């Protein structure tokens, strides 16, 4: 029973007054109960400006009247949802912007490039009336297609069947000449439920069109079998078939045919398909395709039918909405049989088909607004743990997934807390516990990008040349190290530059995810990743806020003093926190890789989580190449002097031009690379003595100062030895060697003695062996 108008909701009644006020509305009828929709509706008459010469006739060429009745349906959920808008049932449906709907339902204008409910909430009913009035007037003056916005693709009713294809590729096949091409097509067809079979169409179709052309030949009918197959399962068929792309010919003056008239979708069978193809200028190509197919199929002995796809490539006068191309692909499908392919001739049913872009690098990059592709194939990512997997997936979703991913580990249940991938339901979670590299690579592959997975321990490359060549072939330009493993970092730094030109881009989290680090090696890998990390420690030490977080957390000393990595068992932080850093790092990585070839110096980024727990504050540091100093007494070891330390040494020497001076070296030792890295220097104590031929480093306060420094960095940075100046360009003196032996004797590990001369640096290596030889 329908409610009487007495029950007409007051909310709607108020809005009726508003409709009445709209200048384009001539009259608003009495609200009525709409049985079909089970809600109230009202008819409003809109005044439409027709083109001037049509005003007398009262109807536009396209069939829009000077006064148009519009039905506004107020859904039961009104005003949570906007009113639905229907035009009179005989309103012409040949317009671009008409919602696809059943032929027996009244036409519904598509008045907004967006969600009508959203507009309704944002700007109210009035703006909907404005949109509607404009739509009607544009329809009357044939202005619905706006060249700036783009060509509106033909609207299709109730598309149930969708196939995917690389649309950019198909468009690229629409050349100036008319032609037809056959492409591989893999399908899945299944029966519709019995009560859902209108239009003589018993099945649904899904599938994918490939980019390879199928070469059909009548000479080898049996060869056709590779193209056509059917594997029936329960009410379902999977198989192979072909897709035809028919492209337009020339117009009467020999120019490429342009279909500049919007045509509504009317195809139901072969006859109407040809009629439509004629409007698009494709009928000759289509005919050629079918006759060739028929010729090829004539001798094929097959007693089944398969679906084929027919795509009409339509050339429009300007680009399509949201696309840069003016080629509209209008797809259909039909069932063909053998040997006579069209079982019912011209009456063989043809169904409109939805065509969607396959996931592709281009699609992903375009949606990520990445204009230029990175040379993703030249990027290798090491470490597919929580941070690495997130970076890999971020990159891949932007269409630039790394070409290779490496990890030595396997996923385990606790990884589910922070890894970018998700475990799937399965027996005993065994699917989940596979190699991390393989899991990440298959995720990247699912985004249509080729990625190689390597289950390998990168730390072995130092002594395994074959492994090194396998993991990092010459084409690799960037290695993203997300392992947070010092061993891996050392191994990477150990490989000589001439054997591995790729620059290492390091990413790591520290201090329970409160500090992030990202670094990129300089040209010729100087500064290299170890130098940068040592400098990062120095910078962390110098930063009053970061220092306690990284070096002085309770328990920091128990697991890797340097706060290394997000080793998952030790660092207990949330997935969101890792993502917070991973997201901004990925943004940075994309930029760094783009600029890499132009960048000479090394770069270091330190990110700090602010106290609000939300904001990240990144600081960028440029790192000049380090000076590599050979040892006078050892060919294997080197001293690497950071620019910061070098500048302090220079300043000190210029203060004492007539006497020797010196100080204490601070930094880190790398055993594997056999180097001292000098991050900083400490001034000589006050009891030091500076003379023309000699410098005596004093002791006053030194043990305390060094101890304090080491403590502040949790022994990450320490004393490396001493430096002093020579006024003339000569190497270490006998006195220097004597002192070196003394230093060596008192220190368990090796030490360095750095000498600054007008001729550059010289080095002396001091370790126990020196003591023994002296003795």
């Amino acid at each position, binding site marked *: 029973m329908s409610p009487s108008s007495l029950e007409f909701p007051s909310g709607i009644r108020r809005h009726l007054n*508003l409709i009445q*006020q*709209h*200048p*384009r509305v001539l009259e608003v009828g009495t609200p009525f109960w709409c049985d079909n929709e089970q809600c109230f509706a009202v008819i409003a008459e809109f005044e439409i*400006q*027709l*083109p*001037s*010469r*049509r*005003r*007398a006739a009262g109807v*536009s*060429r396209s069939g829009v009247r000077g006064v148009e009745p519009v039905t506004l349906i107020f859904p039961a959920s009104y005003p949570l949802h906007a009113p639905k808008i229907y035009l009179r049932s005989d309103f012409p449906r040949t317009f671009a912007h008409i919602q696809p709907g059943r032929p027996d339902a009244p036409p519904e204008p598509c008045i907004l490039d967006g969600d009508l409910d959203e507009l309704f909430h944002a700007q*109210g009913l*009035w*703006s909907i*009336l*404005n949109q509607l*009035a*404009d739509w009607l*007037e544009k329809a*009357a*003056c*044939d*202005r619905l297609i706006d*060249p700036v916005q783009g060509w509106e693709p033909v609207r299709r009713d109730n598309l149930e069947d969708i196939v995917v294809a690389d649309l950019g590729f198909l468009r690229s096949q629409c050349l100036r000449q008319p032609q037809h091409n056959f492409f591989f097509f893999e399908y899945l067809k299944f029966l519709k439920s019995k009560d859902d079979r209108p239009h003589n169409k018993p099945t649904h179709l899904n599938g994918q069109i490939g980019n390879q052309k199928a070469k059909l030949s009548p000479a080898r009918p049996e060869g056709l079998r590779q193209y056509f197959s059917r594997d029936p399962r329960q009410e379902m068929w999977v198989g192979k078939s072909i897709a035809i792309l028919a492209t337009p010919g020339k117009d009467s003056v020999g120019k490429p045919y342009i279909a500049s008239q919007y045509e509504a979708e009317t195809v139901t069978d072969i006859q109407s398909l040809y009629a439509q193809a004629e409007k698009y200028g494709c009928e000759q190509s289509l005919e050629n395709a079918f006759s060739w197919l028929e010729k090829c199929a004539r001798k094929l002995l097959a007693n089944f039918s398969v679906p084929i796809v027919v795509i009409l490539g339509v050339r429009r006068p300007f680009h399509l909405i949201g696309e840069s191309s003016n080629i509209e692909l209008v797809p259909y499908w039909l069932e063909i049989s053998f040997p006579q392919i069209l079982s019912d001739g011209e009456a063989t049913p043809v169904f409109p088909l939805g065509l969607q872009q396959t996931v592709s690098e281009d699609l992903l990059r375009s949606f990520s607004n990445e204009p230029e592709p990175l040379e993703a194939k030249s990027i290798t990512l090491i470490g597919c743990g929580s941070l690495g997997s997130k970076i890999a997936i971020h990159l891949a979703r932007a269409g630039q997934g790394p070409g290779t991913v490496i990890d030595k580990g396997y996923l385990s249940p606790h990884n589910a807390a922070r890894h970018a991938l998700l475990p799937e339901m399965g027996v005993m979670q065994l699917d989940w516990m596979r190699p991390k590299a393989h899991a990440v690579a298959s995720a990247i592959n699912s985004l249509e990008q080729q990625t190689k997975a390597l289950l390998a321990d990168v730390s072995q490359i130092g002594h395994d040349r074959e492994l090194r060549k396998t993991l990092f072939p010459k084409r690799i330009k960037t290695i993203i190290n997300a392992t947070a493993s010092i061993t891996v970092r050392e191994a990477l730094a150990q490989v000589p530059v001439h054997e591995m030109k790729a620059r290492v881009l390091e990413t790591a989290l520290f201090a329970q995810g409160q500090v992030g680090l990202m670094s990129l090696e300089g040209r010729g890998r100087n500064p290299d990743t170890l130098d940068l990390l040592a400098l990062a420690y120095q910078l962390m030490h110098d930063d009053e806020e970061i220092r306690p977080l990284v070096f002085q957390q309770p328990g920091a000393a128990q697991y890797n003093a340097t706060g290394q990595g997000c080793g998952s068992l030790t660092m207990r932080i949330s997935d969101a926190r890792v993502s917070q850093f991973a997201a901004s790092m990925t943004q940075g990585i994309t930029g760094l890789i783009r600029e890499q070839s132009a960048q000479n110096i090394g770069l270091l980024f330190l990110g700090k989580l602010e106290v609000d727990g939300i904001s990240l504050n990144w600081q960028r540091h440029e790192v000049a190449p380090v000076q590599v100093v050979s040892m006078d007494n050892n060919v294997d070891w080197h001293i690497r002097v950071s620019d910061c330390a070098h500048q302090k040494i220079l300043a000190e020497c210029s203060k004492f031009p007539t006497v020797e001076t010196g100080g204490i070296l601070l930094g880190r030792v790398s055993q594997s690379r056999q180097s001292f890295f000098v991050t900083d220097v400490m001034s000589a104590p006050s009891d030091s003595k500076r003379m023309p031929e000699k410098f005596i480093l004093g002791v006053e306060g030194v043990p305390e100062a060094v101890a304090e420094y080491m403590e502040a960095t949790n022994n990450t940075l320490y004393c490396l030895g001493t430096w002093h100046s020579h006024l003339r360009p000569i190497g270490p003196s006998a006195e220097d060697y004597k002192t070196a032996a003394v230093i060596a004797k008192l220190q368990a590990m090796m030490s360095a003695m750095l000498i600054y001369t007008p001729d550059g640096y010289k080095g002396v290596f001091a370790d126990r062996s020196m003591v023994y030889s002296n003795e």
Partner: protein
Amino acid sequence: MKSQITFFPVDNGDMTLITLENGKKILIDVNIRGRADDDDDDAPDVAAMLRQRLPHDAQGRLYVDVFLLSHPDQDHCRGLAKHFHLGEPGSCPNDKILISEIWSSPMVFRRASRHLTLSDDAKAFNAEAKRRVNLFKQTRLIGDIGDRILVLGEDENGKTDNLDQILVKLDQQIHHVNGAPETAVHTRLLGPLPPSEFEDEEETLSKNNSSVIVHFLIASDGTGDACAFLTGGDAEVVIWEKLWDKYGEHPWLQYDILQTPHHCSWHSLSHESWGDTDGKAHVSLGARNALAQAKTGAFVIASSKPIEDDDNDPPCIGAKREYEKTTRRVGGSFICTGDLPQGQKAQPLSFELDKDGLCLIRQSQPSPKSIFIGAVGRQPLAHG
């Protein structure tokens, strides 16, 4: 692309832009009031509205293909020197609009200067027109962009003899627009009327605001005659009578859109004064007929202030009524550029040209304030 015609809201004055389907821009008159540049003034900023609609040339300068000056009254050329470059094109600064080709009538200038002192804008325009004509005389070549000119109508005493391909004679069609053959518009020169041998008649023509009168037949949307547009500056009654005598119901007077002469002035339709006769002035049949050759659904545009029911002229309510008789007869509309729907900001009045004539591009309706505040602030509200 469809062709467009745009009338800018310039009160009593003319400023009309034709955009052809090939993108060429023909600007007829300007009335950019100084106060349009002043933020504190509510006069619409027509200079900005114009600039938005103009393309840039290769040097990044805005330009019009053609600027046509109907006659040198201030309300038809105000702001010209300030916003347009007048001089050698090479010296055009980036903030000025370059005029690629000028359409000018020395005859109209001569008649105008008999009765009024030319404004600085008019003088600057005249100097520029002379520069371009002299350039042609020296080189005998159609100039480059910024040097081109067409002279509309022959002047007295053979002054325009030997101008050959830059001279457009009365009744002739303008075949070249901005130096290139043009098929997107057929432009027919109907005025100024030629110099009379009789001093009296010449005096009458001068007093009747001799103006360039042009009939444009504009192609759009695949139709060669999508729109016929008749415009005639401030030409007054005698001139329209003569045109009616000469052409009668010839297609050259027929229009889909008419710009009412002289901002809907009574003097274009009658020899008598509207104010003096208390609204009982007689209409000249000839002049009215000349301006009543409307095609079905035609628009008549008064480029003027809002038209009130008073003694004012122009715009004149009596003239409006005469034009409305015509538009009613053909199912068309009369629109005044000064009339604004309540609460709307002044916008250019734009038409897109369809194969079936003109489509008025209407602005969206701003939502009535009453939705939000009802009567508050609109009237005193007593509270007990």
